[in-house]
Each structure stands twice: as C-alpha cells, then as structure tokens.
C-alpha cells in the first residue's frame, strides 16, 4: 500500500522525461505567457497606483487614479454607461440577429450556401474598411442612405452626428457584421437530431413550440459561448468606433477601449490607463463568472458521445 502511494508521488525516469519533453514543446507559449501576460499583469497592477508618463519613472500615488476615475473624472462617468449600453444591447442583438438568420437558413432553402456566404460576408471585411464604407454611406449630406431618404422627400437622419443615434447606429452595424456567430449557430442547428423534432411533432408541438422547446435548448451551450466571447470582445471594441466616430459626437461613443487608449497613448497617462484596465478586467471577470454561474439554469448540455 505504502509502496504504491510512494510510486504515485514520485515520477519514474520515463515520466520525468515526458514532462521535460512536454515542457520543451510548450515552452514558446510558456515564455510568452510569462513575458506578455504575467509580467504585464503584475506591472500594470503596480502602474495603476502610480503617476506615469513614460518619460519619467513612475511615482507612487496610492489609490488616487481609482478615486479620480470614480469621483472627479467627467469623462469616465460617461464612458462607463456608454460601454454598458453598447455591449449590453449590442452583443445580445447581434446574437439574436445571427440566430434568426441561422434558423432561417436551416430550413429547406434553394441556394443555402449562397445566402450563407452573403450573410457571412460583412464579417470578413477588415474593420477599418467597414469604417470607411459606413462613414460614406451614413454621411448626412452625401451618404447613400440619406440621399435615398431625401429623394423620397423625407428628412435626413443624422446617424453618426447625433449623440442620441450614434450608439444605436454602431449597434446596427454590429448586427450586420454578426456572420461569425451565424456560422456557428447554423452548424449547431444542423447537429440537432431530427428525431427530437419528430418526437415533438408526434406530441403535437407546433413550429413555434418546437423552436422554443427543442431548437433553443439544444443551442444553449453555443449561445453561452458566443455571449461570453461577444461580451469580452465588445468591451474591447476599438477600430470601428475609433475610425467612424472617434468617440463623438459629444462623447456619445467614447467607449472603454477608446478612452483607455486615449489616456495611455494620447495623454500619456499610463497610470490612469492601467487603473482603467484593471477595472475593465474586474468587470469582465465578474460578468463571465455571473454568466457561467447562472448558466446552469438556462444551458442544456445534451450528453453527446464526444
């Protein structure tokens, strides 16, 4: 008994060689992990308690950055609700769009792969190109959309020049470019066993009931995955708002990533930017935690053979 226990603790020579080989193979990641993640995490935490403009060495100022952000910073007060609005509304709406498109494509359709390609298309266009195209399309004077409205005798809409409309406009652009999730959903929908639908039909469920009680539950693991990644990426969304609205008009699209970037690389307030980064990290960790904790209630894991 004892001998067995000891053998489990101690590695044999072969086992040790295996660990060394394994470590050798993963060493690029391990080195990168220490250099680009662990060290930056630690030093960013330290910088968040300092005043640091890169040119001079950091000066420890305690909690001042955090206190300033939450009490006296007029911008952060706007940035936080802006971001919650954008992510909180934009991510679910993009997912719902993607899901409905996938559901539509999953029915009997002539030329499905053509439609799938078209719906996926906006997702492969570089974000900086999307910014160029939409800035022209939505231009209040020369843009196609407003020109059509004008030609029809209607009033033009200040999509990106009105503080009330800028955020919804960006959200709609996000819905338009949600093809990545659509592909995922479509593949998931096609994996739902036919028998489940047949059984539901036999039990007298109509199309809507089948959608609600079979389709959606079978897709909840993927919905959770896209929701979590969507939120994480949503908080970091930078290129499109930066190039399209650059935070304007009157800070209505000044989102977290933009404001952080501005503080770090335009105002050289590295300490404050680091404090913002840690607050963002905390927000993401808490949200992910809540999503995973509550997921037991709405996520259904079919016990597949995989």
């Amino acid at each position: 008994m004892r001998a067995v226990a000891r053998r489990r603790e101690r590695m044999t020579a072969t086992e040790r060689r295996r660990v060394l080989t394994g470590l050798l193979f993963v060493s690029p990641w391990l080195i990168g992990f220490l250099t680009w993640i662990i060290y930056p995490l630690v030093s960013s935490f330290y910088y968040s308690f300092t005043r640091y403009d890169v040119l001079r060495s950091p000066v420890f100022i305690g909690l001042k950055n955090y206190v300033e952000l939450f009490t006296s910073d007029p911008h952060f007060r706007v940035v936080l609700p802006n971001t919650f609005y954008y992510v909180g509304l934009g991510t679910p709406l993009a997912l719902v769009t993607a899901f409905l498109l996938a559901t539509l494509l999953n029915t009997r359709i002539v030329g499905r792969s053509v439609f799938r390609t078209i719906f996926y298309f906006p997702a492969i266009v570089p974000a900086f190109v999307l910014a160029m195209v939409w800035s022209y399309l939505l231009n209040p004077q020369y843009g196609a959309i407003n020109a059509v409205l004008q030609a029809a005798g209607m009033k033009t809409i200040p999509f990106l020049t009105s503080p009330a409309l800028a955020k919804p406009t960006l959200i709609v652009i996000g819905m338009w470019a949600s093809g990545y999730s659509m592909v995922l959903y479509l593949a998931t929908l096609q994996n739902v066993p036919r028998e489940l639908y047949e059984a539901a039909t036999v039990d007298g469920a109509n199309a809507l009931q089948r959608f609600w009680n079979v389709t959606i539950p079978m897709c909840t693991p993927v919905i959770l995955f896209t929701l979590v990644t969507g939120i994480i990426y949503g908080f970091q969304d930078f290129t499109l708002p930066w190039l399209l609205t650059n935070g304007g008009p009157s800070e209505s699209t000044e989102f977290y990533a933009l404001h952080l970037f501005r503080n770090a690389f335009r105002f050289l307030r590295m300490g404050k930017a680091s404090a913002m980064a840690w607050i963002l990290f905390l927000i993401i960790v808490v949200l992910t935690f809540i999503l995973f904790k509550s997921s037991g209630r709405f996520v259904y894991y079919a016990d597949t053979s995989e």
Partner: protein
Amino acid sequence: MTVQVSSTVTPRVARRRRRTRLSATGVLGEIAKHSLLVVLSASFILPLYWMAMSALKNLDQVFVIPPVWFPIPPRWINYVEAWQFDDFNLYTLNTVVRYAIPVTIGSVLSNVVVAYGFSRIYWRGRDVLFSICLMTMMIPGQVTMVPVFIIFKHLGWVNSYRPLVVPAFFANAYTIFMLRQFFRTIPRELSEAALIDGAGEFTIMWRIIMPLVKPALAVVALSAFMGAWNDYMGPLIYINQTHLYPLAMGLARLSAALNQPGIKGMVYPYMMAVSTIVTLPSVFIFFFAQRTFIEGIVLTGIKG
C-alpha cells in the same frame, strides 16, 4: 471527429430524401421565405456593393441626389489615381513584408509546436497548464497593453514592426486551442506505432502529424496573415512615421484628406477604391478556404 463534423454540416442526402410534394399554401410559404431571404441578403450586401460601385464614380456622381448606383461610364482610372494619391505601394509592402509574412511564419511555427505539446504528448501537469492557457483568453488586451508598450519602448522598438511581430513567435491561446482540437482528431495509435519504431516526438510531429493537418495549418497561416492585414490598433500604438505605415493607417490617412480644402471631391471614390482593393485578399482567401475555415470555427466554438 473531422468526418463527423463535415457530414453533419451538410446533411444533403438526408434532406433530399425528405423533399416531398408541396401543397398550394406550402408553395406560397416557400416563396415568402425566399423573398425574405433575398431582401435580407440584399441589405447585407448593399453596403459592400456601394463600396465597389462608388470606387468607379466621377466627380459629378459623388454628391448627387438620388445617389448613383451604377456609375456609367465606370471610371476605372480611379484605382490608379487613388493608389498614387498616397504611397500605397509602400504601405502594401510594409503590411506584407514587414508585418503579415513574419507574423504568419511565427504563428504557424510556434502554435504547431505548442499545440502538439498540449495534445499529442502525455505528461503530468499538461492539463493544468492548458487550462491556464485557456484562461488567458479572458484577459483583455487592454490590461497588458500599457506594460507591453513600456517593455518595447525600453527596447527602443517603437516605430518598428518588432513589437507586433515578435510576440507572434510565442503562440497564442486561441490558435493553440484550435490546432489542439484538430490534433486530437488523429488516432493515438499512429503516434504510438512511430514511437515503437524509435521516432522522437519532434519527428512524429514533423513527419506524421503535420501532413495530416495541412488544412488546419492553412487556416492558422491565413488567419495570422489576415490578422496582421486587418490590424489597425497595433500599428496605431507602435508606428507613427508615415513611411512605415501599413495599409490600414494609409487608408485612414487618405480619409483624413476629406478635411483638407481643395481636393475633397474625389476623396470618397479614392477611399472606396482602396477599400475595395484592401478587402479583396480577405474575399479570395475566404472563398479559397471557406470549408476549412468554417470547420475551424465549428471545432473551436461547438466542440470546446
């Protein structure tokens, strides 16, 4: 697993068998559904159609109401003029040679080796380390951005592509995860047979596993290339000399010409011309590797 995925993604056979004769209301329903799809796809494609068409407009067609949807005659010379309006040859060269190609090489080399270590070799502590690796995907880039910038600043690497290229040689969690999913589809017996024949792990990886996952390697290479091609924020942080600009920043610079007096008129067609050119590689790559790409998305998204 690979076979299973591809067979479930397109269950054509099953579908064909189910095709039955439709009733009159069924026909109407089909027509309604297909019309909806056509309208939806038109609205999805219209912005990009607008981009491609606007690239061919002349000065009179840019600012007219109602807007011109078919510029006749198309002004193809816009492409040449736009390209020469700024040094786009140089920007392309910077993007491809200084950024995208080195990143692609680094990404393929490092991720293959690491993913191999995380999937094909069985060693104690592997799974713990791998779950740490997965967790790093949750860390927002913004958290590490400032200290990483400071490291590169101290190394004197600002205004070079090294800060964007060198990290690519150290693998990244997402690609490791995707490749590992592919590697795991290969039966273990294959490696074991080679091990018995006296092959080392590196030989097995190089000679046996890599030839089997060529499509996955293509996905890794193409995603790395496109990642660099599409990147705007990275260069925005590190590159501030015009002669080092990548295409993304060159295009943004062109759009800034809108705010200058005088040349305003043709800037929109030029912007759209460059935008169209810059989008083309993504389109080609997508059509070229659509199946494999989608399989990659599915493997990471569903089977995770």
